[in-house]
């Protein structure tokens, strides 16, 4: 396990209990999504596991070692955190300067800093914006630049707080494809928060549902979304195609052996029903 969290609690100074005994494990190399409605504690949880907030109680381990044993430098070489609003993160006047900030703080040589800036910007697809002032970027470009700033630290795991928030559908697809590429090609463990349930089955290896400071469900998308009532009780919903399949089964008596979560799965289910071979799609 790359990150293990046991019984973590956090209460804000106004008395709001944001996390109430969270247990959480992320295996290395996976694409994990933390799903939760607004105010469920996702951002607080991320700030706790990145050391930005100190939990009142509970244990956090990184690669089996207790969190407190890590120096800040050691920790942030392993864990990168991308904030929801890129304007919070991009503080330097130009894209290149911002991306260089982390490597400079790691006290790397100027050549290595320049290499990392170039590589990171190439990975996120904006090498041409290296000298561009940040305030002239589009929102999607700012998101990419923020990810590049974290990539330049070469972390083992990148944690992203709602990376698709505020993007148009093409922007969402581009960012998600970038994250998949980082996960599959660069072998970086990805943990992201979202409340967009339709994204989850397309990209996640594993999901967690956080609701009112607790982890309600954990597992593969199929395992989690099979618990329909619990998902709905957490102010979330099933993916649209799963909901459609549910209606088709209930009102139109279509045979649904297993809820489809993606358009591809739904297509297989419908074709199987049309062809009268219901068992074929579930296998």
């Amino acid at each position, binding site marked *: 396990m790359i990150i293990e969290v046991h019984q973590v609690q956090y209460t804000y100074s106004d008395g709001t209990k944001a996390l109430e005994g969270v247990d959480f494990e992320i295996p290395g190399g996976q694409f994990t999504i933390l799903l939760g409605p607004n105010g469920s504690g996702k951002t607080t949880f991320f700030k706790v596991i990145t050391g930005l907030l100190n939990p009142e109680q509970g244990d956090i381990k990184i690669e089996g070692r207790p969190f407190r044993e890590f120096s800040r430098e050691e920790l942030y070489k392993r864990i990168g955190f991308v904030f929801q609003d890129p304007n919070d993160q991009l503080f*330097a006047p130009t894209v290149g300067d911002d991306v260089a900030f982390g490597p400079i703080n790691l006290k790397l040589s100027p050549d290595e*800093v*320049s290499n990392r800036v*170039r590589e990171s910007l190439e990975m996120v697809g904006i090498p041409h914006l290296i000298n561009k002032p940040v*305030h002239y970027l589009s929102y999607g470009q700012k998101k990419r630049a923020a990810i590049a700033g*974290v990539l330049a630290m070469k972390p083992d795991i990148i944690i992203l707080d709602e990376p698709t928030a505020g993007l148009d559908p093409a922007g969402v697809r581009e960012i998600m494809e970038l994250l998949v590429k980082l996960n599959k090609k660069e072998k970086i463990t990805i943990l992201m928060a979202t409340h967009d349930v339709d994204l989850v089955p397309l990209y996640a290896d594993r999901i967690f549902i956080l609701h009112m400071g607790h982890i309600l469900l954990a597992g593969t998308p199929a395992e989690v979304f099979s618990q329909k009532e619990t998902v709905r009780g957490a102010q979330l919903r099933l993916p649209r195609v799963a909901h459609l399949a549910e209606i088709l089964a209930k009102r139109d008596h279509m045979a649904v052996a297993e809820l489809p979560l993606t358009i591809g799965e739904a297509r297989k289910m419908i074709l199987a029903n049309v062809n009268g071979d219901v068992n074929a799609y579930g296998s």
Partner: protein
Amino acid sequence: MVKESYLMVDALAQRDNTFTRMDARVKVLLSVLALAAVVGLPGFKLPLFIFALTSALILAIRVPFKIVAGRMLPPVFLGIVVFLFMALFHQGSQVFSLEMLGLELKIYGEGLILGTTVLLRIISSVSILLCLSLTTPVHELGYALIWFHIPRVIVEILLLTYRYLFVLWDEGMRIRQAQAMRLGYPDWRNPAGWKKAVNSTSTLMAMVFIRAYDRAENTFSAMQIRGYNGDIAGQRYKKTA
């Protein structure tokens, strides 16, 4: 609140021309020398020459007249006020006098010369700074200042201010538009509307302040995650592109 022309000046400094391509350190050095000469040396000729030179440069890089006027007029107005005070109240030999509304206004020669000197110094100093800001992006100016050993904390504050000025400007404009759409600024001409508008403006300023504070907290966290140790140190980044 930032005026639109300030944002425009930044956009002009980002354009590609001979002067924007010039090393920022050279431009800073030339500007400081020119300012020192204008302020320190006596006579009208040098300030006039520098004003002519900077005006030619501004014309050459095709800066819209509105921008130049917007930046030049406030200090020129101040210079004219200083000029009038000097001409009217600096004692010396009287050049001429005129009577207006039963008051005798006396113009003194020494005051006239001193006032003209101050006015010309203001005009040419402002034109030097305008040239520098129209041809040098702020981040390059910051790195040039670090090179000249200006205390780093001052340069870092300058660069952070420059970066977040635009963010806070956007936030302020969004709040203002949201207020305007719900009649937050009804009519400045009648007292009730005026009071309402003042109220909306003060709310806007308070909100921008609160958001600036929140953003500062988040930005500090984001910097910590990338190993911030109290030094932004952008100058050590070796640019390759």
